[in-house]
């Protein structure tokens, strides 16, 4: 069954890619660690991982929209809107339990996501246009709800601070949340009908219709999930950085997209894995952290981020071309007499 082994090479490639990212992480760690030993300190890792945790689960939401062939540009604004709203509620009603605040933020996010989903699903407006518009609208609402008064360090209650600082089962809450969400997302995407339908829909919309998959519902679902995760992330974000401003998480959507692309999510839809995105976020987190530690100016920071994304895409293209060529050469062909 030489043939069959050959065909599973494509699957292998995906696995190899995840392995590749892992190697990159190791190499980066070693290089940066030698340049600046601070990198290896426990505090630095915790800092980096706390940052990466929020990025991780919001990127998972982003991934789900990208898998359907869409995109969610509004996540950064939803983070800010949810964070600002919850911050203000906390300031006005310090007695509210942090869990209630988390819940509220998540619901705000869910609402924002649902609006995206309805516009895209029912309204049949292109996801790029829809979320580009809502990105601005939600960002504008941040200013509106805050009445231009930011949430500042002094407003943060101790209970609220502990959302990001506290631990569950000995693991920092942020990392714990990311872990749980990753596990749930993995299960949902790989082991439930709906999850597989999302992949099928992103792969071939017409064929999905042929097997009775309701594209409208899929769209509503994925953007709602993405919004919900961004809303949840917004609360954790404010708890982590102790402020909520109009420019909180500005440009954050690009980071989530980058994490997806580095993690092997196809921008054309149909392909992506939770593990890939987790590794992608980790790469991204380490890069940001490393740039900080090495003391690189902001301009270069953005450029380096861009280079990494480009590298990931080129890496992908080269690898898939190579696999295809190998498959061709292994094919059985006879000699002419």
């Amino acid at each position, binding site marked *: 069954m030489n043939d069959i082994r050959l065909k599973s090479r494509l699957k292998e490639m995906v696995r190899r890619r995840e392995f590749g990212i892992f190697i990159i992480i190791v190499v980066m760690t070693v290089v940066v660690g030698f340049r600046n030993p601070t990198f290896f300190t426990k505090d630095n890792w915790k800092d980096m991982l706390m940052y990466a945790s929020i990025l991780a689960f919001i990127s998972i939401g982003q991934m789900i929209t990208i898998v359907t062939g869409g995109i969610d540009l509004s996540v950064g604004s939803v983070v800010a809107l949810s964070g600002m709203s919850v911050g203000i509620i906390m300031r006005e009603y310090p007695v509210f339990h942090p869990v209630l605040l988390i819940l509220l933020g998540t619901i705000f996010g869910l609402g924002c996501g649902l609006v995206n989903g309805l516009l895209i699903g029912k309204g049949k407006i292109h996801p790029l246009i829809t979320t580009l518009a809502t990105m601005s609208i939600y960002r504008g609402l941040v200013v509106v709800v805050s009445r231009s008064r930011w949430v500042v360090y002094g407003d943060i209650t101790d209970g609220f601070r502990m959302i990001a600082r506290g631990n569950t089962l000995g693991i920092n809450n942020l990392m714990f949340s990311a872990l749980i969400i990753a596990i749930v997302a993995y299960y949902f995407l790989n082991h439930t*009908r709906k999850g597989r339908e999302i992949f099928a829909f992103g*792969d071939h919309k*017409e064929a999905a219709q042929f097997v*009775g998959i309701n594209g409208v519902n899929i769209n509503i679902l994925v953007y709602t999930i993405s919004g919900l995760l961004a809303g949840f992330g917004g609360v954790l974000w404010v708890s982590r950085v102790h402020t909520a401003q109009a420019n909180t998480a500005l440009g954050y959507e690009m980071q989530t997209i980058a994490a997806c692309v580095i993690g092997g999510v196809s921008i054309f839809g149909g392909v992506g894995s939770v593990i890939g995105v987790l590794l992608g976020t980790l790469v991204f987190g380490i890069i940001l952290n490393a740039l900080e530690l090495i003391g690189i100016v902001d301009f270069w920071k953005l450029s380096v981020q861009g280079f990494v994304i480009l590298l990931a895409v080129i890496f992908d293209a080269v690898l898939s071309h190579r696999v295809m060529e190998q498959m061709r050469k292994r094919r059985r062909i006879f000699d002419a007499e």
Partner: protein
Amino acid sequence: MDKVQSILALENISKKFTGTLALSEVDFDLYPGEIHALVGENGAGKSTLIKIITGIHKPDSGMIKLSGEAVSFSDARASYDHGIAAIYQEASLFEDLSIAENIYMGHQEIRPFTKNIKWGSMYKKASELIRSLDVKLDPRALVKSLSIAEKQLVEIVKALSSDARILIMDEPTAALTKEEIDYLFNIARRLRKEGNAIIFITHRLEEVFEIADRVTVIRDGKKVGTIEGEHIDVDELVRMMVGRNLKTLYPKGETEIGEPVLRVEGLSRAGEFNNVSFELRRGEILGMVGLIGAGRTEVARAIFGVEKLEGGKIFLEGRQVKIEHPRQAMELGIAYLSESRGEFGLVLQMDITQNITIPILNTFTRFGWINRENERKEAMKYFRLLDIRASGLEQKVESLSGGNQQKVSIAKWLAANAKILILDEPTKGIDVATKAAVHKLMSDLASEGKAILMISSEIPEIIGMSDRILVMNEGVLVSEITRAEATQGKILTAALGEKTS
């Protein structure tokens, strides 16, 4: 009449799409244990009818009855749940998912509480199903790693996975070669014997005779009539389809065959073809036949410079040339019309004029400005010459029928003054009338001194149109047959023959 209850009956079905009436008061019935062919020209409304039966479109008026009971389907799954499965004309597979997932998408077995998919049993059932059909496929393999023929097999397996009582095959044979068609027909006959009903859509009339119990003809969204199997007659069928008599499908004229214009020696590319040598003469139509995957298209693409040759030489009018890019091939007067017209060749979003004049824009361009008037004149010349059916030169190519798209791509190359035309499945998926027109065009071009290399899976077309026939089998040229001695049997033996290494 009502001896047997029909399993499916459509009554007075009408459907409108933004102004155009796709179906008008169509009746159709289907009985258990029959294979009912549905034929008609492209755009006649066959696919719309099918999509109404499978619940993808809702009829504007009319009734669908299943075993005498009126039903209405909200979506494809509702129809599926009523025992209707379909093999669609266009590839409807998920390329990045495994074979097993493709088979069971939308109706995976799940555990009651956790709602998770039973992956283990899915793979097991898929591999049993595949084995029961005598196919060798790994259910875990991704669909994108399969050949075209294998994908078709997956489509068939997928449709059969459901134990459907009504199976719809929308041009399932378009991409299949003889062997696979026989295989498919055997499955169809077996299903018929088991009391299932099959709706079979095809462009190949010989298939209708081979397998159908009844034929329903649709023209311009209306039902023309239904004929019982024993009364089916080609001329009658063609007349019903096109509404007029058709003299012949293969109007091959006598031409003077001149000196060789293209000669290739020992062309090779690992995994695709090996040591292929032949020559093509002025005024000649050289047919190239073989199973899908035999390397025909690959040879053509390599000559045209799309893929790199790994060995061999190409001579044009006796002079050796090196072709590393399609642009070089074009400059040398070689044209290649690919099997899928959208892939390259046509810019679907552009109108007819723009498509025809792409390769010769320089001739109407002065100081970087295009002279639209001259461009239009030139395009009009070919528009008339090839009898392209469109509302005008401004119509977007995207909205043309397959046959007319094909004509536009031929027009483009004629405008570019190509001497050698490589036509890859020139009439695939094209209705009978346009097919005849494309054949006529080929014949005319040959008599004007063009050299044509025609790749086709349709043996009647190959026999009908070729001066000489090359047969490929597993990457190797196995046989060369002259027009005089060409027979279906001879070609099939060579194309299907077991090769030993």
